[in-house]
């Protein structure tokens, strides 16, 4: 053996590429990678083929440090694959088994060739295990990161969607709150509301909490903060849409909202109109009489 042992391994892989690839695919299929229907066999075969080729090239350079520049191609390929799997809803197990199930075919390939002594085989297996474990960890890291990014994006979208400030009348705003109020959302809600108060020169803001599932002491505190801030800007707040169970819970908890509260948004709106000396009246329909 003229070259480094790893180069010999790379050569072995290139000789037995088809067999390894088939074994690998068989293992993946046995592990249930194709059952979910998220990926087709041909696609999986291409992915496996590309990875094996890149891995072989990296081995040819005689290195098992997967952080070295030689492996950059392998790592790029893996992160691409892992990211696409994360967004397509593959389970962590499916993603990790992609790399880990390559071990078995490689080991059997080494055994099958019969060209190497026991000491060499042991060394190959050790180095292959180290490299593939590292790559497996890397894959999971990228997978996790991609999932986190999805979650962060969704959170941002939810917070943007769920805090609209609507104008009900000249000078009357409504803030229909939906979902749990945590401190971060309260901040967004507060900023939105205060800015709209300035923009619309509003006098009254109705905070409707019909869509808030639970109100505990913390939520109440957040609500009160919003009310206090609106008051500092010169706008009055009315809280509406407190559901019966929530009203009971609040009383049991000893939470006191020292603001005007009404059962429904309609009641609150009526109060707001009255404050602004406006009223809703029934229009008498005058039937047009032809002359």
């Amino acid at each position: 053996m003229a070259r480094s042992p790893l180069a010999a391994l790379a050569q072995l892989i290139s000789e037995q590429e088809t067999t390894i690839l088939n074994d690998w695919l068989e293992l993946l299929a046995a592990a249930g990678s194709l059952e979910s229907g998220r990926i087709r066999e041909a696609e999986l075969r291409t992915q496996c083929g590309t990875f094996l080729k890149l891995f072989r090239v990296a081995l040819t350079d005689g290195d098992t440090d997967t952080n070295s520049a030689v492996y950059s191609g392998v790592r790029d390929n893996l992160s691409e694959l892992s990211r696409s799997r994360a967004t397509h809803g593959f389970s962590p197990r499916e993603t990790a088994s992609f790399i880990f199930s390559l071990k078995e075919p490689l080991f059997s390939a080494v055994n099958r060739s019969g060209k190497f002594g026991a000491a060499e085989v042991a060394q190959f297996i050790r180095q292959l295990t180290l490299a593939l474990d590292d790559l497996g960890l890397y894959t999971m890291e990228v997978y996790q990161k991609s999932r986190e990014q999805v979650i962060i994006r969704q959170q941002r979208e939810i917070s943007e969607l769920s805090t609209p400030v609507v104008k009900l009348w000249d000078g009357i705003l409504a803030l229909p709150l939906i979902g749990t109020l945590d401190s971060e959302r309260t901040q967004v809600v507060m900023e939105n509301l205060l800015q709209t108060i300035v923009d619309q020169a509003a006098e009254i803001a109705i905070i409707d909490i019909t869509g808030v599932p639970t109100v505990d002491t913390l939520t109440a505190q957040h609500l009160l903060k919003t009310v206090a801030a609106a008051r500092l800007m010169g706008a009055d707040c009315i809280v509406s849409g407190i559901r019966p169970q929530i009203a009971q819970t609040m009383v049991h908890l000893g939470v006191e909202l020292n603001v005007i509260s009404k059962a429904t948004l309609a009641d609150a709106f009526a109060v707001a109109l009255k404050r602004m000396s406006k009223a809703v009246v029934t229009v008498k329909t005058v039937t047009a009489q032809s002359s």
Partner: protein
Amino acid sequence: MDRIPILKLGDALLVTIQVDMHDRLATALEDDLTNKIVKHNAHGVLIDISALEIVDSFIGRMLDNIAAVSRVLDAETVVVGMRPAVAITLVELGLSLAGVKTALNVERGMALIQRHHVLEQGADDDIAS
């Protein structure tokens, strides 16, 4: 030392804070305002803070103090034009300025003072009659 001008506007006093408040300026304003309320027999004090971008607990307390002093001298204090960021900061500092009336702009603040004054006078008339 620079001072913040206090303008007399009918029955009320108008204070427009255009510069960043530092503590000495705030104390001076408190003194001046107290004297002017007595001198002009003012019924209302309008403090326009629409240009104020930074507040701290000291300024918050000053506003509360001015309101308390004015109330003793029978003048209503209205803080107008507070910026959203300032409002959030004050609330986070735990200063909700309970004793201070607020309005969105000077115009509305003026209307508030006048309404209050009319109500008070009405009450006085009732007592007199």
